[in-house]
Each structure stands twice: as structure tokens, then as C-alpha cells.
């Protein structure tokens, strides 16, 4: 009997597919190796392939597609742009950031600017200017009160809550509290009111002249002293409402007033010192016929008639 399965190279393949002729099959079934092939065939068909989780794989593929090379390059570009933008913005913020000087109540400070100008900052005030490139555009912002001694070199601008003061090498004092007052001690300055767009309506101040802004009305006055009182350690008042005097006191001493029924519109003429609270209170309040109580350890001064 011919060993078909060896001689015929497709014989076993055809047997598996059931494609053998009747005679071929009969002969094969009687061969001694048939049983072995049959067992191999039978057992092979009992084997199981791997378990495959198609849905999970689909999710994985979709994730890979989203984070695939093409999109990630675009994303990387966006990240780079974002990082660059943040750097530019933060550098820009730093370059355009302001330097601010602030004085607390009762504190005074002398500031020397990059161009050599000197500013004396009175108590409870602040001055700020650009940290970089300030010399190209000399602008400072003031709240409170300060005395300016500006060098004669290029334009200099002081911005306040009430308007701008243009300067060319001079000395002047700005007080921007409840009361707004500019005093020119040297040279010439120009005041542009905040809401004023017509430059012909600007006020020009020369040595010895001052302006007082009262309910947006500008009063021009003259004065005689050559340096602001506050710089010498006293505050002087001439026919000023009591409220302004009390405000000045709260700027220079860490106190607040309990006004009670006191009429603060009454006018006061006189002065107080900056280095002795008891003395300052006596010199301002007693002439006005006001008594005061100062509870121990409390910043509140209680006023009464």
C-alpha cells in the first residue's frame, strides 16, 4: 500500500478538507498512521485561540488616533506658542511694572529719581513711576503730598487724581488729599486739570503762586515762604476748615477722630508740630474750644465741646 500522505504533498491537506476520493479515504483509514493523524486533527480542533477584547482595542486605537503623531506636532507647536506668549507677557509685565514708594502715617521719605530729581514724600502718601525706560518719558504718579525738586533736563510730568502738572526744572509742592493744592517755589509749572482737553485753559504757576482746587473751582493765591511747612516738621494753616486740619493730623499721627457733634467746617488758623501728638492736639483743638479724650491704648480721639 502506497504511503499517499508522504508521496502526495497535498494528500493530508485534502483529507482535512474532506476532498479525498472514496478510494483514497478508504485506503488511508486502513493505514496504521491514520489513527494518529485523526487524533492530532481532533485534538487540534479543541484548541482555543486567544481571547480578544475588540471594544477595548477600539478605544485604544481611537485614543492613539487622537494623540497620534500628526496632532501631537500641532499640539506641540501650540504649547511652544503658549509658553513663548507667557514669557513675553511676563517680561513685558516686568518691564512695564511700576516702582512705588509709600509712606505710612507719620512717616516721611526722600526719593532720589534716576535723573537726579529729589522728591520729599509727606506722610500717608505714595509715588510711583515706571521701573524701566523712565528717563525717556519722565512721568510720576502721586497720591497724597510731596515736595518736588526737579532738575532742568527734559519734561517732567506729575499725574494726580485731579490733573497733570508739567514741569521744567523747578521746585514745587503738591498736596492731593481732600484738598488739592499746588505751590510753586521755583521756576514755572503748568497744571492741566484732569477733565480739561483745551490746553489754553491750563494754569501756569510761577514762583510764589499757588492754586487751590475747591469743588473743581480753581482759586489762585500767592504765598511767601520758600519751603513747605511740612518739610520743617510743622503743618501751618490759614483760614482752613477744621476737617482739613483733622485730616492732616491723621496723616501724621496714627489716630482717628470721633467727631461727635463738632462742626468741622469752622475755619482754623495756626499750626501743629509733627513730632508730638499731645502738643499737636492741644495747639489745634484748644483754640477752637474743643476738648478731647484719648483713651489709653486706643487710636481713637473723642472730641466734644
Amino acid at each position, binding site marked *: 500500500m502506497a504511503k499517499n*500522505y508522504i508521496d502526495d504533498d497535498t494528500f493530508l491537506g485534502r483529507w482535512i478538507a474532506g476532498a479525498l476520493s472514496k478510494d483514497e479515504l478508504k485506503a488511508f483509514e486502513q493505514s496504521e498512521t491514520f489513527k494518529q493523524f485523526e487524533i492530532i486533527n481532533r485534538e487540534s480542533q479543541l484548541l482555543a485561540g486567544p481571547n480578544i477584547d475588540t471594544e477595548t482595542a477600539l478605544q485604544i486605537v481611537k485614543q492613539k488616533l487622537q494623540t497620534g503623531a500628526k496632532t501631537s506636532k500641532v499640539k506641540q507647536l501650540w504649547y511652544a506658542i503658549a509658553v513663548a506668549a507667557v514669557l513675553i507677557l511676563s517680561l513685558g509685565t516686568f518691564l512695564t511694572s511700576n516702582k512705588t514708594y509709600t509712606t505710612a502715617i507719620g512717616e516721611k521719605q526722600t526719593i532720589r529719581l534716576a535723573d537726579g530729581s529729589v522728591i520729599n514724600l509727606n506722610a500717608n502718601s505714595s509715588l510711583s513711576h515706571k521701573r524701566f525706560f523712565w528717563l525717556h518719558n519722565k512721568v510720576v504718579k502721586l497720591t497724597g503730598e510731596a515736595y518736588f525738586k526737579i532738575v532742568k533736563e527734559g519734561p517732567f510730568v506729575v499725574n494726580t487724581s485731579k490733573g497733570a502738572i508739567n514741569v521744567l526744572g523747578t521746585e514745587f509742592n503738591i498736596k492731593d488729599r481732600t484738598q488739592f493744592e499746588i505751590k510753586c517755589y521755583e521756576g514755572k509749572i503748568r497744571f492741566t486739570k484732569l477733565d480739561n482737553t483745551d490746553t489754553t485753559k491750563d494754569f501756569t504757576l510761577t514762583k510764589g503762586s499757588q492754586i487751590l482746587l475747591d469743588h473743581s473751582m480753581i482759586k489762585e493765591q500767592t504765598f511767601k515762604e520758600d519751603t513747605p511747612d511740612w518739610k520743617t516738621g510743622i503743618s501751618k494753616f490759614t483760614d482752613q476748615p477744621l476737617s482739613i486740619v483733622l485730616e492732616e493730623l491723621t496723616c501724621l499721627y496714627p489716630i482717628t477722630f470721633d467727631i461727635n457733634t463738632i462742626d468741622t467746617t469752622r475755619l482754623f488758623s495756626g499750626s501743629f508740630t509733627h513730632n508730638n501728638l499731645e502738643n499737636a492736639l492741644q495747639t489745634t483743638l484748644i483754640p477752637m474750644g474743643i476738648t478731647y479724650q484719648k483713651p489709653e491704648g486706643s487710636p481713637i480721639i473723642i472730641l466734644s465741646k
Partner: protein
Amino acid sequence: MLEKEPSVCEEHNYNKLFRKFYEPATKYIYYKCGNFQQAEDIVQNVFIKLWKLCNTITYSKAKSYIYTACNNLFLNDVAHQKVKLKHQKTLTDTIDYESPDFIIEIDEFRKKLKAAINTLSVKEREVFLLSRVEKKTYKEIAEITGLTVKAIERRMSIALRELRDILGKDIKV
């Protein structure tokens, strides 16, 4: 009038193809390389490519693309490696069964059968497993592998002969 073919670029069509062909393609590659993780990676990459090329592959051509691409990736990826099926480790030393009649230890035999299948060459193993485990006809296998039915009959015959050579002594008739 020609009926317009569904576009592979449409997600529901793509999902349909995935659900239809992911499993058989993964098994096909698994039978070739013997590493399930590798098989899944290959087939998943093919499906990623299919999505990217969805404009150029028609729905009816997707099946042959998937199998061809899987095979190509497999050849690129692992053909150079010595490939063995995972359950290779269950191979035990050949024990000569003294028992007179039949196979006693059917479990032992199955382990040996798997081990023997592992030793087949890739060509024979893929055909043998697609036919015996996946119960595919030679025509279907021919479609997947790109071979002729004649070639498959030949490879099947070789596979069976080799398995018998290895296992014959374990089968006492």
C-alpha cells in the same frame, strides 16, 4: 447605476470594520508571531493607518488591506526574530508512555500538541491554526494569506506530517 460604497472615513463604518476584522486579524498575527501583545500592537497600528488612509481605501477593499497590512507589519516587525508561541513554556520533556492502548493523559497530550505546533514554521503554523482552530476554509485562508488553495493544501499536509513525527510516539494505537 453604481451603488455608492460606504465611506471608511465615516466613524460608524470604520467601527463596523473594526468589530468585524480586529479579532480575526489579531488571531492571524498571533498564530504567526506567538506574542499576543505584539499581535494586538500590529493590528491596532494597521487600523490607525486605515483611518488615516480612509479616503484612499474603499469599504470593500478594507478587508484585504487589513490582512495585507498586518502581514507586512508582521514581516517588518518580527519576522527576523525567532518566533515562538507563548505556551512554549508548557513544553515538557518527552515521556514515553508505556500504557498499552491509548493516550492516558489527555492533558499531557494537549500540552505536547501545543508545544509541537509551536515548533512548526510560521508558514505551516498559521495555515494549520487558521484551519483547525478558527475553522476557516482553505478558500478563506487563501484570501487572508494571499496564497493559493493548492499551496495551503501543501502546507497543511506538511504541518500534519510534522506533528505526527513529533507526537507519533505519544499516540499508542
